Each structure stands twice: as structure tokens, then as C-alpha cells.
């Protein structure tokens, strides 16, 4: 190709003799550089746009496939085919990495498949990117619980409770999580922590929430009948006549020694309660207590004394059956029993309240000795102990 000539001097442009030549040569090189750079920049921009479009198409396809796999996974999970569900969720998670719920579903399915270590690995990755994600912490808690690591499981449950839930779902999600957590704590003998979580649960519970019934049952299991009764009462306010709430309230009142109210609740629960036989049994015990309590309301003096004597007769007989036991107080108790019986037979005009109290206390002690020394126990014996306990508490 012939070299360009300078219009000023007619020499080739590369000639160094002519300043115009040199200048033209410089401009030519620079023009060429700029043109090429502009061309390459244009190519880069076009390629970028084209590649981005292609990537978007690819991404959309992958997202559709992932959503499809996710749906299949959920169906398989519902059908109980956990292993196949794991594969589907995994495929969804690989195809669309933008959706953490796919990984979450995968981890959940792995947990159900008892592949807890694997689930934990998946979840740790998610947790690293968002440690406050309550849903991740919840599934992580379940998976960790499956490995037997109670300390970490409690930590993750607490993170789930106090973590970030999706907008608007916070309260609705926290309630079942807290209930699950409380059950987990009770199963692992962390009663104190369970009670504090239960108190926190009912504190934040809306008045109309059906969870009051569950909370009452949990308080009962945790031997807190007073809080349990409150929850059952709230449940009854929300749904009057609910047999389960009535049964729960009856049981709580029974545990509190409020046998009159227990009877009312239990009678109301009646045959409609799911725990029909339990309710009937408890009602029978409640009746026995009320029918044998010498201090029960609306009794005449003679009725009170009769009840007292009958109770003492029964306790004395029980103690005598248990007579081979060498208890240092047995003789004293029997002697005292006889004395009170004699005293009650003489007092025909009006009940001596102290005598009644002493008699109830003596009956209680006799039954306690019988129970502890001979392990003799029956419904009436249990009722006499409860009568004693009730009046001890009242005296205090």
C-alpha cells in the first residue's frame, strides 16, 4: 500500500524533515487510536447489552424451572415422599440462587429426612448472609434440635423469636414458634425457661387469640395452675362453653384446691369434652372431696361432726391396716383420733371449729403416714389428704 504523502512538501508522511508532515503523522496516529477506541467501546457496550439480555433470558428460564421444581417438591413433601422432595428443592435452589426460600425448603425437607447435619450446612450458609432471618434460625433450630445439641437449638429458637420476620407476619409467626420452643424446652427439662417463655407468650397474646387454651394446658403441665386458670378463663370468654377450656379450668381449679369451682367447670365440660374419661374421673374425685369435707358450706353441725368422725374412722382403719409399721407417732395419732371422736360425740349443740380443724389435720396426718409408710392409697384417702391441704392453706 503506498504511503500517504504530505500535501505541503510531497514527501512521505513519515519524513521528519517537514514539521507539517510530522504534525499530520501525529494527528493520523491519534485519530486512528481514538477511532479504534471508540469502535471497541461501542462493541463492548453492544456486547454488554446483548450478553445482559441473554443472561436475563437464561435467568428467567432458570427461575421458571426453579419455581416448577419448588412446586413439585412441595407436592412430594405433602405426599410424604421426603427424599424426592429434597431432590426437587435442591434443584430449585441450584437453578435460582436469588430465592432463599428454596434453600429454606430444602433445609426443612432435609430435617424431616433426619439429615440434620446436611440441613445445618445449608442453613449456616443462609444464616451467614442474614443472621437475623427468623425463618432461617427457626429451621436451623429444628435441625440442631435433631442433632441433640440443646444449647445451640435454644440459641437458634431464641434468634428465631427475636429475629426479623417478613413484614406483617411477625406476631402470627412468633406465637406458634414460641409454643414449639416451649414444648422443646419442656421435653428437655428446662422448666424455668419454659415458664418464662410461656409468660412472655401470654403477655403478647391478643385477647381473642385461640392460643390461650394451649397456654393454659402448658401452664398446667408446668405446675402453674393459677396462670393456667387465667388462660382457660380467657379461652372461655373467647369461646363460652368450650369443653376443653372447661375441662382445663376444672383441672386448674382442682389443683388450686378450689373444688367447688372445679366441680362446676367439670360438670359443664361433661360428656362433650375430648378427655371425657379424665373429666369424669376428676369430677368423681372432686365430688368425693366436697362430700367428705367437714368444713363444707351449708352443713349442719351434726353433719360436719358425722363427716369428721367418718373420716377419722376411715383414716384410723387405714392406719391400723398399716399397723405393722413401726411409726413412732402411730400410737399418738390413734389416741388423738379417739379423743377427737369422743369429743365430737359430746358436742351436740354447736360445732367446735377448733375441733373440726384439729380433726381434719389429724386425718391428714394419718393418711400421710399411711401413704408414706405403706404406700396405701385410694380415692378417699387422696380426698382426705386434699381436704387437709385445703384447710391448711386456708388457715395460712
Amino acid at each position, binding site marked *: 500500500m503506498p504511503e500517504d504523502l504530505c500535501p505541503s512538501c510531497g514527501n512521505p508522511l513519515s519524513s521528519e524533515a517537514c514539521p507539517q508532515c510530522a504534525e499530520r503523522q501525529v494527528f493520523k496516529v491519534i485519530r486512528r487510536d481514538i477511532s*479504534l*477506541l471508540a469502535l*471497541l467501546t461501542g462493541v*463492548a457496550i453492544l456486547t454488554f447489552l446483548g*450478553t445482559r439480555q*441473554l443472561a436475563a433470558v*437464561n435467568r428467567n428460564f432458570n427461575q421458571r424451572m426453579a419455581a416448577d421444581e419448588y412446586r413439585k417438591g412441595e407436592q412430594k413433601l405433602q405426599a410424604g415422599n421426603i427424599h424426592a422432595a429434597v431432590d426437587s428443592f435442591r434443584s430449585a435452589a441450584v437453578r435460582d*440462587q*436469588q430465592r432463599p426460600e428454596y434453600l429454606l425448603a430444602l433445609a426443612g425437607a432435609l430435617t424431616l429426612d433426619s439429615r440434620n447435619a*446436611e440441613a445445618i450446612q445449608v442453613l449456616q450458609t443462609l444464616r451467614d448472609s442474614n443472621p437475623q432471618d427468623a425463618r432461617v434460625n427457626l429451621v436451623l433450630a429444628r435441625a440442631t434440635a435433631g442433632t441433640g445439641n440443646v444449647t445451640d437449638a435454644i440459641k437458634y429458637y431464641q434468634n428465631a423469636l427475636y429475629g426479623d420476620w417478613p413484614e406483617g407476619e411477625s406476631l402470627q409467626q412468633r406465637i406458634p414458634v414460641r409454643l414449639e420452643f416451649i414444648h422443646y424446652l419442656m421435653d428437655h427439662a428446662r422448666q424455668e425457661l419454659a415458664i418464662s417463655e410461656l409468660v412472655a407468650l401470654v403477655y403478647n397474646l391478643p385477647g381473642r387469640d385461640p392460643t390461650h387454651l394451649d397456654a393454659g394446658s402448658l401452664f398446667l403441665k408446668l405446675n402453674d395452675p393459677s396462670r393456667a386458670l387465667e388462660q382457660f378463663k380467657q379461652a372461655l370468654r373467647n369461646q363460652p362453653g368450650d369443653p376443653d377450656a372447661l375441662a382445663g379450668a376444672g383441672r386448674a381449679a382442682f389443683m388450686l384446691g378450689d373444688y367447688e369451682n372445679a366441680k362446676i367447670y367439670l360438670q359443664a365440660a361433661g360428656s362433650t369434652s375430648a378427655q371425657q374419661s379424665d373429666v369424669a374421673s376428676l369430677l368423681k374425685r372432686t365430688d368425693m372431696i366436697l362430700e367428705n369435707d367437714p368444713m363444707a358450706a351449708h352443713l349442719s353441725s351434726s353433719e360436719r361432726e358425722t363427716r369428721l368422725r367418718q373420716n377419722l374412722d376411715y383414716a384410723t382403719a387405714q392406719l391400723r391396716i398399716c399397723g405393722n409399721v413401726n411409726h413412732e407417732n402411730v400410737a399418738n395419732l390413734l389416741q388423738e383420733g379417739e379423743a377427737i371422736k369422743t369429743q365430737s360425740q359430746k358436742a351436740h349443740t354447736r360445732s367446735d371449729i377448733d375441733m373440726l380443724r384439729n380433726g381434719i389435720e389429724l386425718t391428714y396426718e394419718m393418711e400421710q403416714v399411711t401413704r408414706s409408710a405403706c404406700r396405701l392409697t385410694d380415692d378417699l384417702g387422696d380426698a382426705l389428704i386434699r381436704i387437709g391441704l385445703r384447710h391448711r392453706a386456708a388457715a395460712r
Partner: protein
Amino acid sequence: MNRIGIFLTQRLPYRENQVFLTLTVLIGVLAGLSAVLFTLCIQLVQRFLFGAAPAHLRLFLVPPLVSLLTGYLLAKFFPEVRGSGVPQTETAYHLHQGNIPARVPLGKFLTGVLCVGSGHSMGREGPSVQIGAGIASLIGKWFRLSPSRVQNLVPIGAAAALSAAFNTPVSAVLFALEEIIGDMNAALLGSTVLASVSAVIIERSILGNDALFRVPAYHLADPAELAGYAILGILGGIVSVIFCKALLGLRLFFLRLPKKTEIFQPAMGGVLIGIILIFVPQVMGVGYEYVGQALSGSLALGALIVLCLVKLVATVVSYSSGNAGGIFAPSLFLGAMAGGAVGTLMHRFAPFPTGDSGAYALVGMGVLFAGIIRAPMTSVFMIFELTQDYQILVPLMVANLLSFLISKHFQPKPIYHALLEQNHIYLPGPESRLPASAWRARDLMLCDVDFIPPTNTAEQTWSFARNSAQPGFLVGSKELLHGVVTHDQIEKAIASGKGETAILSLMTAEGWPHVHPDHPLDVVLERLGQSAGILPVLSRHGFHKVEGVITRESVLQVFDQSGSDSKMRAANNLP
């Protein structure tokens, strides 16, 4: 000439520097785009050829049928693009001054997409490197840069492409320096980093910020666990050696087949791959999905072992039969499976607490990379970059070092170099790449030095000097050098009747050329030229203290000896 003209004319000599810097960014962008496009095209082709749930017949037929087409293209149009692309890039850099023909990146893109997309067990990183390097070379030539500049653009393009393909910018830079240039101290570091960063920005702006793998949280459960990683390193070294030997052996077999079978060789490999895919479809293509599963501990021990063995066989077959694709990804796949297997066994049987199998799979990736690719620094930083966790460094280095040493012992030639040598291409070794300035005066000097006592007369000195071939002598002692007297000076003094003159008075007062032990070769040669043929080497701790002497003969003697550096040091009892 106007002012602008004058200014531009003055700036013209610096044009290359400015253009080079601009091109570094532009090449980073274009190479990054090419790598992303390559990845996307592989996925699209694979989806097109296999669909979502391919039947057995499809799995069996696709690889050989597509390989017939790629075999034809490779044999007729693009013979330079078979295999990985990394060795070809090294060849272009070291032997062809960075000159890569325009058809190479185009051919590599086309055949790479078809080969990897049709299910051959190969990686996309090697081809991306060759495509990126090819683009860089082309652009350099379009801008009519000097050959050395074009040569320098090649590793820049390679690093950028690798950075976008693997999403690890730092290890891409290290790979370019360690593997392609072969010099970790190369002056191209800044440009390579710039291109690599540009490429990864482009890649992330298109594909998003998702990591290539969901890497498990790493922790060393017990210091004794290092023993487990050492076992992994040893196993990784053994697997690396088996892979390299099998690959080189089978490739030699294919190379020895008649030339006319060249078109059909990829299809021959394709038939075997088709059969393998029917039974183990997990080894199809790049296989990062299953690497991810190994990292999350989702694969059972049996699956890990089977996938490791079958992937090894499939990659050896795919590569040896002359398809276009790399061994970068397969080495990571093998490492993840081998690591996962060791991790599972450790978890079951180790008498001390151990991490999850995913952590071993992660370290295993680095281990196999160190053993097969033989780029130890890249292997460490690559895994470190994936995890971004300092805790992994010690076990990773322990395991990688063991794997590297075992692999080097049984397979002295790195795989890329050995593959090139099968094509009768011999890349310069580290010695050849050593710059002249790496030679120091201490490497060239003789320590056994004869001194002339300063009290000697010219006559006394002559009686000693006339039988010596040395051009000059040092006057003084090892602890106190007075100067240098030449053979000619003594001879002239005797001839002019000054035989009884003290030798000190013959010496010039202006000083004499000398060097210090740390002076580089070019300074030594320059000063030796200024001297009378004898150059004292003086200590830095005492200007008149002599450490040795350099003569023309001593320099030549050093270069005459093979491996002269170490031998010279040994002869002179130098550390």
C-alpha cells in the same frame, strides 16, 4: 506547527503507555464479556441438546454426534484450539511474542461451547483464558503496539477472562502471573489487577453477585484435624498423579493414531462419554452443581467415590480425544469429591472432633488444583477467596503442599508443559525466564584471591606476575585492599628501569573499578569493561575488605557450567 501539534508531537513517544493503560481496562471488559457469554452459551447449548430430563438414548447420542461436527471444525479450521487453551496461551506468550491469530478466540468459543455443551467432561475456564488472551492479542495488534506490548497484553486478557469465568479476581491475577508468565514478580501486576477487576465488575453486573458455590462455614474442630487434612493432601497428590499420567498416556495414544483419524477422534471420545453419561450423568460438562452438593455435604460416601473415579475417567477421555475444553473445573470437581470422601471418613472414624465433610471438599478442591495444575499460590488463594476465611489457610497450605510435592515427585513436568511437549513444543523453564539482573556479583566471583604485598617492589612483583595469566593483581591483603595493579603497568615499570620502585607508587590515584557482592550482572559487566580485566568485589561492611575477584574468565566459567548458580556457590562455600 500549532501549539497542540507541538504538544502532541512531544507526547507521541508516550502514546504506547497511555494506550496500553486504556486497553488494559477495555480488554478487561471485553475478555470479561467473552467469558460470561461463553458460560451462558454453554448453558443454552446444553439445555438445547439435552433438555430438562434427557432420555438414555439422547445422553448416548449427543456427545458423539456433536463431536463429529467439532472434530471437523477442529481438524479443518481451528487446529490450535484443541484442549484447554492455557498451554496455547503460554506458548503464545513465551514463544510467539503474544501473537494469537484472530481465528483462535473465535474457534475456541465455537468449539468450546459445542464440546462442553454436548456433555464432555471439561471445564470452561481454560477456553475462557485462551479466548481472553486472543482478544487481547488482537486488540494489541490492531493498535499497532510494539511486539513486547502485545506480549504483555496476553496475560492481562487471560487474567480478565479467568476472573470473569471463575469469579475470583485475585486468584485470576495470581494464575496469570504464576502459570502464564511464570514469574510472581512480573511488572505486569498492576495492569493485570486492573483488567481482572474490570472483568469481574462486568461479570457481576450481568450475572449478579451470587458466588459460584455456596461455601460452608469453615472451622477447624480440633488441632488434630490437621492430620486429616494431611491425609487429604497425600490422597490428592496420588489422584493428581493418576489423572496426569492417565491423561498424558491416553492423549499420546490418540496422537499416535493415523492423521486421517483426527476428524473422528473427538467423536471416539464422545462415544465413551455417551456410555458414561447413561450411567453417571452427573459428570456431564463442568459439573459445578455437584461440586456445590459435595460442599454442602449432601453426597453420600459411595456417591463421592464413584463421582471422583468416573469424572477422572470421563475427563481423561474427553480431553485426550482432542475436544476443546479445560481441566481447571474437572480438577476442582475431583478435589471436591475426594475431599468430601476423606471428610466423611474422618467424621465417622476419627477419634477427635472433626469439621463437616463440606470443609474437606473445599480444601480438596485446592489440593487437586495444586496437584494437577501445579500452581500452588493460586490454589491457596482461590480457596481463600471462595471462603474469605483466614481459618482455612493453615489446613489448606498443609494439604496443598503435600499434594504438590507428591505430584511433582511422580510427575516432574507440570501438566500443561507436558501436554505441550507431546506436541513438540518446549516452553522455556524458570531458568530461561530468569532476568539477567538475577545474577549477582557474588555468584560470579572467585573467592580464592592472590594478593601482592604493598611493600613489594615492581621487580619482586614481576617475578610473580610474568608466569601468571591474570591481567592484574590486587595489592594489599584480604582485610585491606590498596588497589589494583595491572600486568602492563608492572611490565612498563620494569622496562623503564623502575624495577625497584614500590608497587604502591605504580597504582593510579583516581581509584579503580570495583563492585559489591549484591551488584547485578549488568553492572558487573559494565565495570569489568572499565577495568583492566580484574574487578575486586568489596564488602559492604568495609570498603577495603575483599570478598572475591571477578575476571572475564571467571564470568565465562560460571556460564559454562550447567546449573552454574548453585555450583558456583558450592565451589565458593557460599551460603
